[in-house]
């Protein structure tokens, strides 16, 4: 067990280091300069580059960046003058986090019961309906669904707010478009896992000793069927954070995902670095935590 923990943490750390290094060098390979868009003379540009340390060799810049990063300093934005990257992340991330959190809650709250019901009513009408529904909606990318929702509710029916004002109504459509894919996935996962559990001997035993169908299905079977769902929540967090890139743009949410995409096109080096490292660490960490929980919840899984 301890061996496994070390191995996983090592692999996660390695991934973070590779991510930082790769991002740094990739980003500087991008042709074009952050100061290209502004009209300025060569000497002004050279001065600016000197100020931000962009005139030094890449490896030196890398070393400086790592040193600053270890002190929690991610530098300042090149586009938004005077704003620190940490400050921008602190301002933007809560929107993305709220969006993602609501979507996860919605996905789990709908997906697990739906999958369980489909499995209990296996091969019945309701099962077929659920399967049809999930198969169709699992194929619709979040941004496509979001676009269609936008057309229907904002453009045609005009009942959803068209501009961002951080009111609860603003969250409805983005959360729905973010959570549809996870809902379908969790439903499928729960259904197939539940079907397998329902065929087990201990379920027969539970029925035989006279327990009610409800207790057997929801206490004995469901409890043992949700384990694959736990392992999906890690990648799900990653999906929701990345999924927000498009959805935030679509519904003009002032979140981190949209800001990241903008900073990539603006070549705002410190912001790209900061955001990538921040999001990357969250994803790696989530996967790590879920892996450990997975092993603890189900004693049948031996961590190696």
């Amino acid at each position, binding site marked *: 067990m301890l061996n496994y923990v070390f191995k996983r943490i090592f*692999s*996660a750390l*390695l*991934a973070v280091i*590779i*991510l930082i290094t*790769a*991002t740094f060098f*990739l*980003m500087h*390979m*991008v*042709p*074009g300069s952050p100061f290209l868009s502004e009209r300025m003379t060569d000497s002004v540009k050279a001065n600016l580059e000197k100020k931000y340390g962009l005139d030094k060799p890449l490896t030196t810049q890398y070393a400086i960046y790592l040193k600053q990063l270890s002190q929690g300093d991610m530098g300042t934005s090149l586009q938004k003058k005077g704003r620190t990257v940490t400050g921008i992340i602190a301002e933007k991330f809560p929107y993305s986090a709220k969006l993602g959190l609501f979507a996860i809650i919605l996905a789990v709250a709908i997906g697990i019961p739906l999958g369980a019901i489909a499995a209990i009513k296996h091969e019945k009408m309701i099962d077929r309906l659920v399967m049809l529904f999930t*198969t*169709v909606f*699992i*194929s*619709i*990318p979040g*941004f*496509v669904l979001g*676009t*269609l929702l*936008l*057309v229907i509710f*904002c*453009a*045609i029916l005009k009942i959803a707010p*068209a501009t961002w004002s951080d009111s609860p109504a603003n969250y409805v459509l983005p959360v729905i478009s973010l959570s549809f894919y996870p809902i379908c996935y969790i439903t499928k996962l729960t259904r197939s896992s539940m079907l397998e559990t329902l065929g087990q001997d201990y379920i027969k035993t539970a029925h035989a000793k006279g327990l009610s169908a409800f207790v057997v299905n929801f206490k004995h079977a469901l409890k043992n069927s949700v384990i694959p769902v736990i392992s999906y929540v890690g990648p799900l967090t*990653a999906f929701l*954070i*990345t999924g927000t*890139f*498009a959805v935030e*743009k*679509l519904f003009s949410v002032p979140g981190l995902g949209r800001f*990241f*995409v903008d900073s*990539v*096109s603006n070549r705002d080096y410190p912001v*790209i670095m900061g955001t*990538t490292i921040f*999001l*990357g660490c969250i*994803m*790696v960490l989530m*996967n790590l935590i879920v892996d450990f929980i997975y092993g603890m919840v189900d004693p049948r899984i031996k961590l190696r």
Partner: protein
Amino acid sequence: MNNTEEKMSKVSLRLNPLSMHVNPNLFVPASDEEKEELVVIRQGTSLWRDAMRRFRKNKFAMVALVLIIILFLFAFAGPMLSHYDYDQFNQGQEDQNPNWTHPFGTDRFGRDLLVRTMYGARISLSIGVVAAMLTFVIGSLYGSISGFVGGRTDNIMMRIIDVLYSLPDLLVVILLSATLKGPLENILQNSKVFSGISELGPAFFSMLIVFALMYWGTMARIVRGEVLRIKEQEYVLAARAMGANGGRIIRRHILPNCIGPIIVTTTLQIPAAIFTESFLSFIGLGISAPLASLGSMVTDALQGVYSFPTRVVFPSVIIALIILAFNTVGDALRDVLDPRMKK
């Protein structure tokens, strides 16, 4: 049959039933007639024939297959039937809603949206298929080497995939496609070798490189797992005991037995690649003007979404249909090709 029965009846008549004597008549060589009867009349069914038969029984999959053919015709033969070109500005016909001359309407430059949707579908389908082929080649080579060689090599090769998997893939994909776009643009413009394909644009190739770099891990893991499993099977041992060499074992026993999962993974890679492509184009890092991609068409249409909602609908529906069709066929293939799925 008659022959045997006759013999049996003779035996029972002549001998005491309790006698322990062995009747030599029962051990005479079989006649040709008898041998004939023992030949199995029904033809053996191969994995493929069996899979095809069960695939055809799946109505959803057949519908999806037909849908894929229609989509390919739409994307590759469709533009030939139209009078318009994807980058042709039709003056005086700007901002039209769907009508008979322009079934999907026109955009603010007067470009015919039906043709643009067809070209977008063409780009999405091409990227999907080529990306799936790339992951197939890289993944199955890497996986089979890792599985065959085993030991420490296998361990190191799999750790590399683990690290690749702990990287947040979309972040890397976004960074990579932003990075590769510029250098590729130079290469495509300056070199004569690529002049024929340069009109596809740098984004097309940068996306392919991204897929080739990032998404072969799943395939490699699956192939390695299959190779490891099959390598230890009794029939491989039996083949080896009968003197088959390594090459024959690979060709006759290992490859045919892991081809199922490989096909399934490749098929399911197509919608995944199309998904990523349209997503990247949607956020403005993929295919860009004047070329059309389904994702970038949705973005373009969003600017006028309040006046022309239909513009958004057509490309969105086509993306969803493509992904749905490939997913359905992939799932059906998994059902028929995976022996563990047999009931």
